[in-house]
């Protein structure tokens, strides 16, 4: 099972955090700190796996963003790398050539896409088509742009 998934920038700025087990806020902050220092301190071309406490840490860098997850000891590291990759692909398909800014400005979308892909720390749906279709379907439910544009900004 995956315990958490973090996205952070080269400067250590957290862009997305997903926790699959109940963890107190203070502990979360500590984990984020540990992960960013540990992962950002790695030399390039090191292996993508680490041990941290009882967890296996798997991380990968995509452009300016680090994707980092903590797994149970019996989990498969290589497949976890591909979980990260599949998530990147899903974001990419949705945003079209995704970049860090997309995730900053549309953070809620990044969470929604993640919920379709991973649930309770397990892979829910691995098909890119099925996930994208369900995201599209929910977008269809949205009110039209005009309705929104008529509202004041604040």
């Amino acid at each position: 099972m995956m315990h958490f998934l973090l996205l952070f920038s080269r400067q250590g700025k957290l862009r997305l955090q997903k926790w699959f087990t109940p963890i107190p806020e203070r502990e979360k902050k500590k984990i984020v700190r540990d992960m960013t220092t540990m992962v950002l301190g790695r030399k390039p071309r090191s292996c993508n796996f680490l041990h941290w406490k009882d967890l296996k840490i798997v991380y990968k860098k995509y452009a300016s963003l680090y994707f980092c997850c903590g797994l149970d000891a019996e989990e498969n590291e290589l497949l976890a790398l591909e979980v990260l990759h599949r998530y990147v692909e899903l974001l990419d398909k949705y945003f079209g050539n995704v970049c860090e800014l997309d995730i900053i400005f549309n953070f809620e979308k990044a969470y929604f896409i993640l919920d379709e892909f991973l649930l309770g720390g397990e892979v829910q749906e691995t098909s890119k088509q099925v996930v994208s279709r369900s995201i599209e379907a929910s977008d269809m439910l949205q009110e039209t742009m005009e309705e929104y544009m008529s509202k004041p900004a604040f």
Partner: protein
Amino acid sequence: MPAVSKGDGMRGLAVFISDIRNCKSKEAEIKRINKELANIRSKFKGDKALDGYSKKKYVCKLLFIFLLGHDIDFGHMEAVNLLSSNKYTEKQIGYLFISVLVNSNSDLISLINNAIKNDLSSRNPTFMNLALHCIANVGSREMAEAFAAEVPRILVAGDTMDSVKQSAALCLLRLNRTSPDLVLMGEWTARVVHLLNDQHLGVVTAATSLITTLAQKSPEDFKTSVSLAVARLSRIVSSGSTDLQDYTYYFVAAPWLSVKLLRLLQCYPPPEDGAIRGRLTECLETILNKAQEPPKSKKVQHSNAKNAVLFEAISLIIHHDSEPTLLVRACNQLGQFLQHRETNLRYLALESMCTLASSEFSHEAVKTHIETVINALKSERDVSVRQRAVDLLYAMCDRSNAKQIVAEMLSYLETADYSIREEIVLKVAILAEKYAVDYTWYVDTILNLIRFAGDYVSDEVWYRVIQIVINRDEVQGYAAKTVFEALQAPACHENLVKVGGYILGEFGNLIAGDSRSSPLIQFDLLHSKFHLCSVPTRALLLSAYIKFINLFPEVKGTIQEVLRSDSQLRNADVELQQRAVEYLRLSCIASTDILATVLEEMPPFPERESSILAKLKRKKGPGNLHPDLDENRKERSANGGTADHSSTTSNAKVAASPTPSTDLLGLGSTITTQNSAPPASKGTSLLVDVFSENIAAFPVETPVAVGPVADENFSRFVCKNNGVLYENQLLQIGLKSEFRQNLGRMYVFFGNKTSTQFMNFAASVVCQDTLQAQLNVHAKPADPTVDGGAQLQQILNIECMSDFVDAPVLNIQFRYGGTLQNIAVKLPITLNKFFQPTEMTSQDFFQRWKQLGAPQQEVQKIFKAKHSMDTEVTKAKIMGFGAALLDGVDPNPSNFVGAGVIHTKTTQVGCLLRLEPNTQAQMYRLTLRTSRDTVSQRLCDLLSEQF
């Protein structure tokens, strides 16, 4: 499409986010956020009712602020309102806010549950999914209570949409993890297993995760999943690379599902049914074969996915540990990966080989890779890879390659990363001891350990070298010579001073013939280190000095001079002062004969293999580090053992004064001081008493029953009060007991298993030695006969006067068919029985934890799990032990924290405990903090035996 929906037009949010991004400083950011918070608060509080859009926008802003790391203390109600909106995006934002920000004990939980209930029954799959995601994301107990029955129904209902089934399966999995007691097995169980046959691979993927988790907990109920999983796996493995359409990932057929199925199969032994077993073997062979085929794509995703399946298949092969051909093939495959250009694969190959090394079928095959692994240790650039290499070397070590491996690890230690030094030190120490044929090699190895990494050498390691030197005559002279030489170094580690002090104190005479290491030179050498050492080491050195007085009368004057100096006699540390005073008096008063008896060489430590080491031998995984951790206990029993060897020391113990020869190691020195030692001034006079004429008056023999005392079942009663204590062919003894504060009552049931009457039946309870004063056990008289097949009950009333270690013995005597039977059983009355649980808040706990921070108040033990590490069982044991189990105190949810008060007649002792499981290494760390050191130690000893 995406371009249209991007940002869904929440312009205000976008503006706010760019404002934050434009802030030049942290202060500016906080200022901007506070302005926004004020604005939102006024909107929420305002008279004008907000429309759904505005609510959504503000809730989203709050969420953003929270995710930036700021506290949010309002807006929850507005988010809950959004849940009942019929506009999808509003509902969606509401749910997102709830799953990120609402903790389980929120007052809003019933409102939230209500909204979820509505969505679950809406029959709108999109809304149902949102609701299920929310349950799975929050997973609180309240939600489990509300939905644990509903979710399985949705999962197995015939008309549920596939995507909802997937969410329901994982939602149920989450509830089962957080509140297993609320997820009841039932009629749905069998139907869940059949989801493995579902047409939709997404449903199968989600269901396999659920079934695996459930099968780990109750394998019997899900046994039928094995054949279904094998069938499914076989279909995937033999399918072409495009058959599964979008479930093929970079030319690999359904890698996620394959890995999950292989994991599910690891919950079970190899299938018994020959056909299924054959089919599975075929699958595994196909997977191994595919590894040799040329890649279908150059992309790393292809090779990762393919190898992920391969590694999982190898895990299953290792788990089954029954097919030598497959094991050897797996090993060869990993051997190829050891030299692969991908660091990731080298890392994983090292990791997997560790488990492979423990199989008898593949141990030899793993050993052939030793040079590659050593090379990895030297040349890998990445510390995490080097760490795996250390683990593997440890796992593959045996008598044939121990010297090479230990030498390589030692030389690596000099440059090793700090983070892994301690672990390497332990591993080297274990291997050196385990495979030592020549003990001079062992001594050299440990001294090198101290030299290269003294700070990382834990107490257990240097205790152990001393025990071994004491027990082996042939190495004593060598050890004395070697430590003497090592101590010559201008800067040597304190641990070396400890070992040196102890060994020279015992065996310095063996090298004293050489003028270069004459007694005086030895003493000067040791004493030159004295002032640089910490108090415990100095205490140990003082003991070494008094031993010198016995070994070398010629340096008596010099040493007395040292002891007499103000810096010793008036030392601020009471332990040092006491030792100086007593040793000085002892050296002045006692005759040479008495000195020789009191300070004679330590008797051998009883050689018995620790249970942990035995376990390590059975399965030597990478995590098995501490076979010798119960040395401490061994040490103690060895100390107790000295009483049998020398009556003088035994008497000294009875007279309640710290005995030099029993606590030379400095272990438990504080215990003797606090527990029984009189003030220093009185101590000398007592010592004099001990050595006066009436020594003989002390009875050495204690009135113990004939034969050994049975204690096989003793430890089972530490965490429970009822059960069968003893059984042989004639007699069964059952117990039922209850305890309140410092009082207890125990009902002992003697069952006559024969058809013949027991005559002259008598049972009595004996508290030996010090226990007499600590524990009162009053046995009510019972009938002198027990009829065949009948049961006799005896009641014991128990009163705990002060804390204690030993257990009373129940002596039973009766006549059966003309022969007199004598049975002695250790009665499981242990200190923890007088526990009263104490509930406290996290804050109180940590405050007390801190207050109990003195070194002697804390006792810690790291030990190997003897049973499977099941959370619920652990909880039950801690509660059975008597402490209150405190939830939510430890920041790490997998740790256990407990608190309680031990009641004795004289005092009450507050106790805090913390148990940290490490499931990966199959180890626990247990920490006890109480206001009394003896209580900490005893509780730690008792509880650590239970896991």
